[in-house]
């Protein structure tokens, strides 16, 4: 069994009332921020199932927006976020869909990027989908994300450059919509991939999106 930290029991310091519905929501927002990286003017949150039914009483709506704006889980300003935020067009939709995880959300930023994630309990989260591609980013590792035209050799080319930087791969997930179609790769790393690696991979044939995603503090 993997050894756990004592601070998995007597932490985090967070604003209440729920580790899954409040802290988890903030962390999902923070993770979406790390993925999108840019400033934004419009965001829509689609809350599913338990997030939709009990979210408002737990401040899930506030937590998601605050996280996306960079507030940490213990920031006392989160409860006032609707009074603080300016010049951002934000909206919420509430949906019941049993095919989705009990606490899950789609975050649609500037009508450009759709990031889906789940709050899996005790403040832990996972990003499950970005723009239609399955990923698995839990925020406890730095990650590297790629989208490219499916072709042989991509994995070894990417792994090669990572290995040359002496970075260890923690987990790896690949997917594609069809043979020769659009493929995605999500790599969790023991140390972050620098912007130089990102720039280098951008130059690979058939790669049309690559970004590094920092882990959550």
């Amino acid at each position, binding site marked *: *069994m*993997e*050894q*756990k*930290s*004592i*601070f*998995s*029991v*007597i*932490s*985090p*310091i*967070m*604003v*209440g*009332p*729920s*580790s899954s519905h*409040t*802290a988890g929501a903030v962390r999902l927002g923070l993770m979406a921020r790390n993925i999108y990286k840019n400033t934004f003017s419009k965001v829509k949150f689609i809350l599913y199932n*338990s997030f939709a*039914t*009990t979210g*408002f*009483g*737990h*401040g899930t709506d*506030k937590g998601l927006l605050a996280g996306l704006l960079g507030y940490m889980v*213990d920031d*006392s300003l*989160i*409860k006032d976020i609707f009074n603080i935020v300016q010049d951002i067009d934000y909206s919420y939709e509430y949906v019941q869909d049993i095919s989705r995880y009990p606490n899950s959300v789609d975050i649609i930023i500037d009508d450009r990027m759709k990031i889906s994630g789940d709050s899996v*309990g*005790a*403040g832990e989260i996972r990003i499950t989908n970005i723009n239609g591609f399955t990923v698995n980013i839990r925020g406890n590792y730095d990650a590297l994300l790629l989208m490219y035209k499916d072709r042989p050799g991509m994995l070894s080319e990417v792994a090669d450059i990572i290995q040359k930087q002496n970075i260890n791969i923690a987990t790896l997930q690949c997917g594609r919509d069809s043979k020769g179609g659009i493929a995605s790769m999500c790599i969790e790393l023991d140390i972050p991939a620098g912007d130089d690696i990102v720039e280098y991979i951008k130059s690979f044939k058939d790669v049309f999106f690559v970004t590094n995603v920092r882990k959550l503090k």
Partner: protein
Amino acid sequence: MAILSFENLRNKSSTENKPIYVIAQEEEAELSETDIDVVRLKVLEDLTAMRAAIKNGLKSTEKAISGWSGDDCAKLKKRYRNSEALFGKVFEKITAFALATAEENLRMGRIVACPTAGSCGIVPAVIVAVAEERNIPESKLIDALLTAGEIGLVVSNKVRLAGAVAGCQAECGVASAMAAGALVEMLGGNTDEILQSSALAMKNILGLTCDPVCGLVEVPCIKRNAFLAVHAVTAAELALCGVESKIPIDEVVDVLKRTGELMSPLLKETSLGGLAKTKTAQELEKVLFKKD
């Protein structure tokens, strides 16, 4: 090496002649590749945040988002302005501190999940109240919190500390067992007495369900924090005078886990049964959902 059972912990404590908190801080330092001082500093941060939550909670009467709660602690304080609690000052502080923290949690204040947000009032109330009344130094509070953490950690190696997994046994119940152990540590008890207190506390919360009204961490959660904080003191007092649990603590944890498995899903954080399905709860639900 992860400590997977209390038997493990007890043996390590006796063969290496170390109290539980020393084992806890050494393990944590090794795991996070840092020094014991850094671990203790992080615990101090938690302790400071716990104190701040109590302080803020004692001052505020702001309602939770639901509008149902937020002024119970104020009622308690008002009563104690004119008369002392039946069980004296420590009891008064423990109940007030637990309510203050749990209410602060519901109004989106800053708290420390211990082990969860819903059970955040129990451990802080007990250790801070007793420390104030007995003038116990800060370093002993850090020892106590490490002891509480280690107890929670060993339980969590067997059963995930979530209402959805094992009902409130695994949240406020385990928090009470952690608080009992922390209290025994603060009052000078040894490893056996600490583990006995946790066993006694845990035995007495078996079967506790998680049936929050409207799915909010509010009814019955806030008041349960006060009840189970006091419950921890009973366990500590018994253990300190040599009372033992006939059933060893590891077996009690196994029962807690098994009881969680036997518990209907309706009673495990789904709000589909228990208090959440009472006539009154359903009426509250109607009002609440219409409001938004």
